[in-house]
């Protein structure tokens, strides 16, 4: 049993509403979970970090190192990052991407993992790279689908139908992006494009349009 206490630091994309993970926290838990947009800043203000079984910082698109530091004198072996995967306006999925640094202790990773799993979440551990696992993998794919649709490879329905029938997807990528927001796709893929410098992440035309329209209000 991995116990933890929760510090709220602004709105959370991972836990926007009530969730068993929040309910299972205790005031004297051995781990510390910093939840919300300002989780990184809250980490900076935290006292006695070293005494915690683990410290988990909620992440956005940024790397854990931004908050936890990477310089030799900043390294802590009990700090991890986390984010529940979520596409745009869709609800957060059951997936928690748990980010570790090279010096993170196995025990800290295991304790954080156990805490999330006890709340029926699924944990995938990854190293500290932009986009973690899912965004890193699907954003170029989504950009390619948007681009080839623009180029009239096939209709949106036929592209989605092909990928659903051929690969067993529950929903085609174009319908999924429409439903969850193309402007939200823009934000993530643009951030990855800047940090990775790989043209495959450059937002597709339709995502740019959606972003520009959202900005114009």
């Amino acid at each position, binding site marked *: 049993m991995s116990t933890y206490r929760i510090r709220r630091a602004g709105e959370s994309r991972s836990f926007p509403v009530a969730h068993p993970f929040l309910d299972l926290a205790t005031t004297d838990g051995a781990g510390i979970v910093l939840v919300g947009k300002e989780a990184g800043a809250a980490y900076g203000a935290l006292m006695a970090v070293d005494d915690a079984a683990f410290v988990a910082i909620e992440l956005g698109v940024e790397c854990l190192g931004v908050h936890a530091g990477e310089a030799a004198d900043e390294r802590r072996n009990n700090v991890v990052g986390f984010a529940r995967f979520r596409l745009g306006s869709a609800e957060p999925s059951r997936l928690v991407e748990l980010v570790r640094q090279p010096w993170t202790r196995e025990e800290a990773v295991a304790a954080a993992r156990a805490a999330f799993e006890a709340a029926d979440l699924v944990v995938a551990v*990854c190293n500290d*790279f932009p986009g973690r696992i899912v965004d890193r993998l699907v954003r170029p794919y989504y950009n390619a689908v948007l681009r080839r649709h623009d180029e009239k490879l096939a209709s949106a329905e*036929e592209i989605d139908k092909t990928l659903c029938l051929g690969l067993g997807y529950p929903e085609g990528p174009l319908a999924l992006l429409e439903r969850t927001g193309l402007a939200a796709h823009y934000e993530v893929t643009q951030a990855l494009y800047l940090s990775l410098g790989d043209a495959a992440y450059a937002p597709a035309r339709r995502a740019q349009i959606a972003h520009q329209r959202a900005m114009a209000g």
Partner: protein
Amino acid sequence: MTDIRTVGVAGAGTMGAGIAIVAARAGFATRVYDTRQAALDNARAQTEGFLRKSVERGKLKAEQFERAMANWQGTTRLEDLADCDIVIEAVFEDLGVKHGLFAQLDKICASQTIFASNTSTISITEIAGGSGRVDRFVGMHFCLPAQLMKLVEMSPGLNTSDETWRRAWAFCEALGQQPVRTQDTPGFILNYFLIPYNNDAIRLVEQGVAEPAEIDKAIKTALGYPMGPLELLDLVGMDTQRLLCDAMYGLTHELRASCPPLVKRMIAAGHLGKKTGRGFHRYGDSKMFGA
């Protein structure tokens, strides 16, 4: 409604055998042609085994089994395809081989016979160019295993007539398949997106982003996909992935389609995937998918 009664399948390998099952099961007189008698024997045995299982599972009636087996005729003589209304080609992935076959068929078959190719990576327009009937030619790309997968990506060549397109589409529906229309461009829809996406997953492993099991788990949980990319690659096989990459990259020069170095190392190490007991994951027994 389709005006097609008799179907030719040229090439009785992995794909041709499956396509012939689909045609015979749907009630078409099906002539299966291969240059090798062994391939025909193999395909016939596979057909019988598969359809028997379908009967056992209640998916096919006993009399449908009998009829499908009677519909299925193997031959090593190309002349036996003379009365076919459509011929679906599934021979080696080689433009010269395909042109050679269609040039001969053009002399044997009636003028209204439609020619179709199951090619994965060669342009339909290019194959049609050597067929003697550029206007009566379509792409019909089935998925492996064809007898289980409903998807058929259909593409017209630049010279395909509307009449041919309409007839071929109706025939595909009569097969009980689900056709989708795509342009005649490399990889059509599925492979165009899938090959680079799979490569991206391999690059995540190469770059140490996460372990293969974590990547597969993340994708399945986040997106509800039935399989993670590395599990899927283990089924495809690294040898096949390399061939697909080389073909796609050769045509598109898109970086994401180029074969990641790890694939080549895995081939050298014998980690081809499920079939060798080890790929990105380890497997206790090396039974093939669908066996």
